[in-house]
Structures are given as structure tokens and as C-alpha cells.
């Protein structure tokens, strides 16, 4: 039982690596990534799968052949974190653009659940939570933490972008043109905190995207502030807070000349 758990944890982690990059090659929106993605500032996330030290992806069907040695090498706790808490975060508009394009790359529209860029266990939700419950970042791997509260049926919303059992092929062309992620939230004046430009629903944990494991360009510059919504106001419309979209008021005083 323990073995089975450990094994599935291994498989998930190891498969994440290859899957992460294959997932980026989304045929759906074909984001204009300025490939290859290399930014020379020491915070490079992208590496090639053939680079030394990277765990090779294991095909699902070859699971039984996986060696125990390899298994030990890939426990989540033994992975070397590349998170540097002392690093200053600088936001480069180019990086930000890339990050947003990358996000668009594995979802149909802003607000759609992202597709899974790696093979999955067809039945077990526990295997998802093993990594995505925590969130992690190594030199080669970025595991985002769940951005919503713990829900127990992961594949209800998230599906594989490249399944292993059959060669993926889009059955028919589709011209759905989903709304893209907003470039930024609106601000009242320069220096004012921007409003949150997306719904908060299912994005309860801001740090999932805007924290350490988030993509460069959309990470917060001030992670020590914990109460995000203290300064960044949500949108009542996007959050479906009100059934009436416009605030209502009493009529203005009637002024007689």
C-alpha cells in the first residue's frame, strides 16, 4: 500500500517534467511565445527535458519497470527547491506578457480551468493533491498550488492536454475565440493599487499564481503583505456578488431655481 502510494507520487512528479513542456505546446490557442523561452536573469524556469539532472518522463504503461533507485531520487522532499526568498522581484513587462500568454496557452479562455500538462492517474485524486496541495518549484519544475479550496474531484474540471492512451488530435477545427487574460487591473491613478481584474471565485489563494511558484511577470512584488484584498478590490460583477449590476441610489435632491 505504502509502495503503491510512493510509486504513484513518483510517477506524477516524474511525468510532470515532460508534461509541463508538452502542455505548453497547446494547439488550441497557439500563443505567440517568443520561443525558446530564455530570459537571462537567473530566474529562468524553462529548461530542455534533455538537460542533465532532469528526471525522464515515464510512460504510464512502463510504470512497473521503474527502478526503486529512480524512485528515491524523485520524492518531493528530496527535490532541490530553487525558491530564493531573498531574491527581489522585478517585473518586466515582457515577462509579464509571456506569463499571460503562457497562461492562455493551456486554457480556452480567461476563467476556464487550465488543462493538465502532464499524464495523470486515471482514477486517483490523491495523486494530484500529493503535489498540487503544496506547490513547489525546482530548477526544472513548477508545481502550482491549488488556487481554490480543497475539492475532491480534480478531473471534474481539469483534463489532460496530452493523454497517453491515444495520440491526441483535434477532431475538428474550432473557432471559439475565448477572452484573454486582462493585461492589468484598472488603477485610479499612478501608484494606486490595481483592482483585481479577474473573478476571485476558485482563485481564493492569491499566492497560487502570484506567489513564489507563480510565473515571473505576474508575481507580487510585496509578498510580505498577507491581506491582498485590503488594497486590491475585487470586482462585484466578475464575482457575481450582486444580481443588480449597477449600484442603485436615491434620486438627487430636486433643486428649484
Amino acid at each position, binding site marked *: 500500500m505504502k509502495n503503491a502510494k510512493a510509486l504513484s507520487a513518483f510517477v506524477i512528479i516524474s511525468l510532470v517534467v515532460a508534461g509541463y513542456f508538452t502542455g505548453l505546446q497547446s494547439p488550441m490557442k497557439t500563443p505567440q511565445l517568443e520561443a525558446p523561452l530564455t530570459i537571462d536573469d537567473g530566474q529562468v524556469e524553462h529548461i530542455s527535458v534533455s538537460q542533465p539532472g532532469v528526471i525522464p518522463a515515464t510512460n504510464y504503461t512502463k510504470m512497473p519497470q521503474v527502478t526503486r533507485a529512480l524512485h528515491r531520487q524523485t520524492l518531493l522532499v528530496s527535490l532541490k527547491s530553487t*525558491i530564493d526568498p531573498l531574491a527581489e522581484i522585478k517585473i518586466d513587462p515582457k515577462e509579464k506578457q509571456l506569463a499571460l500568454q503562457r497562461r492562455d496557452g493551456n486554457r480556452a479562455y480567461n476563467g476556464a480551468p487550465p488543462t493538465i500538462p502532464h499524464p495523470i492517474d486515471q482514477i486517483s485524486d490523491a495523486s494530484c493533491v500529493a503535489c498540487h496541495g503544496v506547490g513547489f518549484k525546482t530548477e526544472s519544475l513548477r508545481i502550482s498550488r491549488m488556487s481554490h479550496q480543497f475539492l475532491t474531484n480534480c478531473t471534474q474540471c481539469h483534463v489532460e492536454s496530452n493523454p497517453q492512451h491515444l495520440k491526441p488530435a483535434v477532431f475538428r477545427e474550432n473557432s471559439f*475565440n475565448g477572452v484573454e487574460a486582462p493585461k492589468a487591473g484598472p488603477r485610479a491613478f499612478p501608484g494606486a493599487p490595481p483592482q483585481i481584474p479577474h473573478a476571485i471565485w476558485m482563485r481564493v489563494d492569491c499566492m497560487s499564481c502570484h506567489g513564489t511558484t507563480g510565473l515571473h511577470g505576474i508575481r507580487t512584488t510585496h509578498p510580505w503583505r498577507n491581506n491582498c484584498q485590503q488594497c486590491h478590490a475585487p470586482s462585484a460583477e466578475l464575482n457575481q456578488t450582486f444580481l443588480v449590476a449597477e449600484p442603485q441610489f436615491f434620486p438627487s435632491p430636486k433643486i428649484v431655481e
Partner: protein
Amino acid sequence: MDNDQPLPLDAIQRRQFIKASAMAAATAVAGGTGFSLPILAQEPKDRIEWEKAPCRFCGTGCHVQVGVQGGKVVAVAGDQNAEVNKGLLCVKGYHVGSALYGEDRLTKPLLRDGDSYREISWDEAIKTIADRIEAAPERFAFYGSGQWTIPEGYAAQKFMKGGLANNHIDPNARLCMASAVTGFLATYGVDEPAGCYDDLDVCDVLIMWGNNPAEMHPVLFSRVTDRRSRGEKVLLIDIGTRRTRTTDACQHYLEMKGHGDMAIANGIAHLLIKNGTYDRKFVESHCNFKAPDDENPNLHGKPITFDEYKRQLEPYTPEHVEELSGVLADDIRMLAELFGNPELKITSLWCMGMNQHTRGTAINSMVHGVHLLSGHFGTPGNAPTSLTGQPSACGTVREVGTLAHALPGGRVVADAEHRQQAEEFWNVPENRINPIPGYHTVKMWESFCTPTDEGGDIGTIWVQVTNPGQTLPNLNKLFNPKESNKANLEDKFLIVSDVYPTATTRLADLILPSAMWVEKNGVVGNSERRTQQWFKMVDPPGDARDDCWQAIAVAHELFERGMDGMKDRDDRFLFEVNGEDDQPVPIWEWEHYYDVNVDKHLFEEYRQFSRMKHKDLAPYDEYVKARGLRWPVVEQDGEWNETLWRFSEGYDPYVKQGEDIQFYHSSTHDDRAQIWFHPWIAPAEVPDDEYPFMLCTGRVLEHWHTGSMTRRIPELSRAMPGGYLEICAEDAAAYGLRNGDKALVESRRGSLVIPVWIDGRGQPPRGTVFIPFFDEMLLVNDLTLDALDPFSKQPDYKKSAVRIEKVSS
């Protein structure tokens, strides 16, 4: 922007922060300067407008918020004000907007010309249909579905039964939930679940009878399992023939053989009586006992006493049930113990496992029986609930009654009083409605595929909103003959209204392009009696038009030609709709169809039918305001109130005060429900030496039914590109099959070459294989059996014997 220098306060905070985070380096987060980004000052020119609609796909009835920009759907969000889904959707729902934009949408009427088609005008298309009907109205059949909206189904129903006096109208729901209907009728005398989804929020035990809601009704399943994330305890039991994603979340997996469910239900009842743990008070006050009447099989059966019932159950000891079902005797005892505990709140869910069953009526009645016998009925959390697969299987098929034997509001054509009421509401001459039921689905298609001179008396079928070329069982008998020239079917004519080319349009003589979902107005009804409304938000592509308009346009063409059936008692057109000036609006002309809200007009007319069976519907405008309302919706003190638990005092306004539980539509007219005994009966086909495997068919999470919509959605299509044969590792090894190998699967009715996926999405036991039916290139229904339930006429897609052979590539 001049804030490259951090503010003093920021700097202090940052220093403290780094100090703290150094100790927890692995999880800490780095800080940075307060770099500000360019301001997005002006609003985008064309903002996104959000509006409510129920999801296009399954019978759960989630509400979505549809984001429209520039005349196109650009985003979808779960509707947080919807009680059904509380803001959550499944992956199909999130991508429902893409279903409109597949590049190969049908946009022009197409008429067959040999092996190809030519584009024709709508005028010509409507005239072609009218010609076919006029030539032989009695040989015309209308085949629809649970995806017809309520107004669409109602218009088709009125056109056929009230106009053509022809009862050959049936829906694909015959293949889907007909046995659920007969189960409800046999038990309560009236259709549809008494409970609702709120049961899922409070039940202690959830039993799934041959059901995989984790994939098929994921939003409902999560509604239960997510309770665990909140620290609640709920016991989940999966009674199934293969392991699925549902099994993963269940404490107990009871693996049974096909038809084992009948033995299990009897086993539970046997123990409840033997142990004296049945609810004596409930049974004595509210129940009768029934057994099938073999000489005159009908839904009334013959009454039996409690002692007879007990005697008939005697053979069903846990050990005998184990023999019949494969479920361990101890597990049968466990189930009986749960049902025997009045403190527990028990909800049962089922869907195709119990409905696509040659004893579907029986097993549906038996599961109701277990709940009634144990008193697990009528209070929150205690409910036997069948789920539906289509957005309006309940609303349109079951309530509007688009079935060959039915009239709206629970009426039947065989009943003179019901006919007379319908004629009254429709204002058509007396005796217009034909008292003889039309052909049910299988008979309709069998007749269509039989040459006219051999008695095949259906000459034309008009198919709307469904794909029988993929979903009928035993396609080689019921659909494919249309293709072959040898079959002598040249005079048969197939009309198909759809949004994409499908396995059905492949053989169509006339293809009509339809509008779908938010390209038109609509009203549907979900699995929990909830009626839901939406408005048109975007235009359909090209010349695609509403299905409802298509039917009305044909009706008007026939009216113009002087066909009496298209006139009411006052010689007015059957579908006359007046505008604000009280003058008829020419809704049969597409340019004027949206001059009035035709949906509202049809719905208000239909609403009158809903009172007889106490399935009261509110006025259309109430549904505009709500995220659906569960019937009976009754006006009390100026408010329209929905009903959560039917037959239960305090919830259902039609239950008399002091009655506690009142089955006020009882078939025995004594306010009692019927507890049925049915003997275990073997499946219609069981594996043997020649065909050693049991083939089960079904759905997968990513694709909705035949995939004609979802396979055109890139995210879903990529996740689940094609069909496969699911087989366990041992059986695969025995046949030398590895993942990706091709296998030839043969039944007595057809064959299929299909890739193998060992322990694929689900894990079948030895001797069972599974093939999903969504792939139009791998039609599993070439293999399936067309044996029917004797009452509901629903086929069994879950149990066909097949053999397997490796295909060397």
C-alpha cells in the same frame, strides 16, 4: 512612474519578512520593489455582457454565466447564484461556449443528390418536408430527444398528435430513462423523483447503483464528496460492474455481475423483514405490495399481501444473493444493516446502469421498494433518485410527454378523457387525437429500415436534436440498412436537423442546419424537477435556424396547402401567436420569428397541462427571474414557491395536513405507494464459450453522449481523442494484447476494430470489457443488443456478449 526606491515602510517590512522567511526557505516567497505597471485607463470598447443559461449538456442542470462580447460567446463562468451547482461546473460546462464554434457547423439546408448534397433554400427544404408529409401523413414519424427544449418538444407534440393525428413521435430518451419512468409510475403512480439534489447535502449514506457520477454528473458527485473537505462524514457505496473514478471516492465497492442489482435489492428486503428492521409504521400507513402479473403484464401487476411478499423473498438469503450477483454475503448484510438503521439518512442514485436493463422497470421499482420498506423516504437525505443524462429529459420528454403513447402533463393517448382535455387546450376538433399509441423508438426505426412492401410502414423520419445513427442499439439492424442499396429502402426519406455533421446526417436525405443553446430562447427541465429558462444571446451561424421554427414553418406550409389538421376549431393556424396589437405575427417567416417570444407563448399554453398531475408550473416570467424552480411551483400569498420534497408534509403543498406522507397519485387510489417483488432474471445475453466477454458501454467525463459537440471542443477532444477497449491486465495478457494494440471485438450483431487501453479510465474485472460510445468512427452500437424491457421498451446497452481477437498490424 518614480518609485524605483522602496518606501521606508516597505523596506522595514521587507527586512523583517526576509528574516522570517530565511527560516522557512522552502516555502517562503521572495520580495521585490514596488514597480508599477502601465495604467489601463479606458474601459475596453466592447465590454463583456454576462447572462444566465443552463448548461447545454447533461441533466444535472447547472447554471452558467455566459460572457458575450461582439456577438460571440467568449467566456463561461459557473453561476454562483444557482442552487444546483453553486458556482462550480465540470470541464464540459466550462467549455460549453466552444460547442458553438466548431468550424464545420451546418449552415445551409442540404438535399441529397446521389452520393452528394446540394445547397437548397429554406423555402425548398420546408416544401420538401411538407410534400413528404402530405403524401402520407400516417407514414411520417418525428424522432426527437431530451435536448428538445420544452417549447420545441411541445410544438412537435402538438404538430404530430394535435395536428397530424399521428402518434409516431418518440425521443431518444426512450433509450435513456424510459425504465425510470415506468419504475416511478409502477411505484408512485406518477413520474419523477420525489427528492431533490438537496438530499446530497445532508445524506449520511449515498448508494450508487451502477452509476458513475464522478464522470457523468460530476457537479452532483462533488457536491457530496466536497462535504468531506468540510469535515463532514458521508459513507459512499459503489455497486458496479467495473471500478471507476466514482469507486475511488467510495468506502465500499461492491462488484456485481450484470443483473446482480435485482438480487441485491431482494437480498436487502429479505434481511429487513427477517431481522424485523423494516419500517413497520411506514409500510402499514403508506404502502401496498405488488408482484408482476405474468398473464397480463402491465404496470399495475397484481396485489399481494405482506406475507406473500415475505414468502417470495425467502430464497434471497445473503448467500444466494452472493451466488447470483457476485457481491459478498457480508456486503449484502452491511447494506441491509444500513437500511435497517432509521437514524441514517440514505440516498440512492442511479442512471443508465439500472435503466439500460432488460428488467429496468423491475429494478427501478425494487430500489424504490427498498427505500419504502425501510422508511428511507420523504425526509431530507432519504430519497431514491434517478438521474437523467439530457438537459430536458424530464422537462420535455417526461413532462411534455413527447413519447409515442403520451400527451402533455402525464396524460396518455389511450385515455378518452385525457384526449378530450388535450383537444380542449389545443382548441382542436373533438376526436382529432388518435387513441392508438405510435411506435416506440426501436419499433419506429425497425419499421423505417424494413422495406415498405414487407410491412415497414414508416416512410419518413424527421430527426431533431439527436444522433440515432450512433446511439440506437444494434445499428446494423436499426439504422445502417438505410445505407445499403440492396435493402430496397429507396422510398424511405430521412430528414435530420442538427448543428454538425453526424453519424445520422451521414445517411440523411435532407439536412437542416439548426440553431443551438444560446443561439435561441429555451426552457428545459432537469433531474430534480427544476424548470430553467434562458434567452437568445448570439445569432446562429449562416442560415441555421431554431428547431421550433422549423416545425412551425412546416406546419404553416401544410396549413397553406389546406390540410385540415393544421387548423383549430376556429379555422385558425395551430400555432397562431398574436403580437401586442392582438394581430397574428407571421412567426413561420424566419424574419418575424423573434418579433414575439414564441417560447413564452408556447410555454404559457403548455403550462395549463401541468396541473392534472400536480406538476404545476409557474408563469414564464417567474423562470426569467429565477435560476430554475422545482415543480410543483404553487402560488401562495402572491409568491411562487417551489417544492423540494414531494409527497412529504411540510414541503409539498398538495399533501393534506396531518398526513405526513401522502402518495396522492397512487395507482391504487388509496394514497399508498406500491412495493414490488420481482424475481431475479438473468440478462438477455450472457457470455458463453463462443462469446466469452460481457461488453458494457457508457460515457466518459470529457464527452457528452455521441460527442458531436464535445469532440469539436479542442480541450475535450485532446483529453479524450477517441474510443478504446477497456480491458483488465489479466485478460489482455491472455490475448497477447498490449496498450495501443488493435483488437477485433465481435458480437452476434457486428464487429469493431478498436485500440486497447489496459485498465483504462475505469478498471473492468476479468471477463468484462468496456467501450465508450462517443466516437463516431468506432461505433460500439454495431455490437450492442436490441433486447428491450417489456414495459418501458428501453434497450440494454450494458450487457452484450462479445469475443475478442488481436489484430496484427
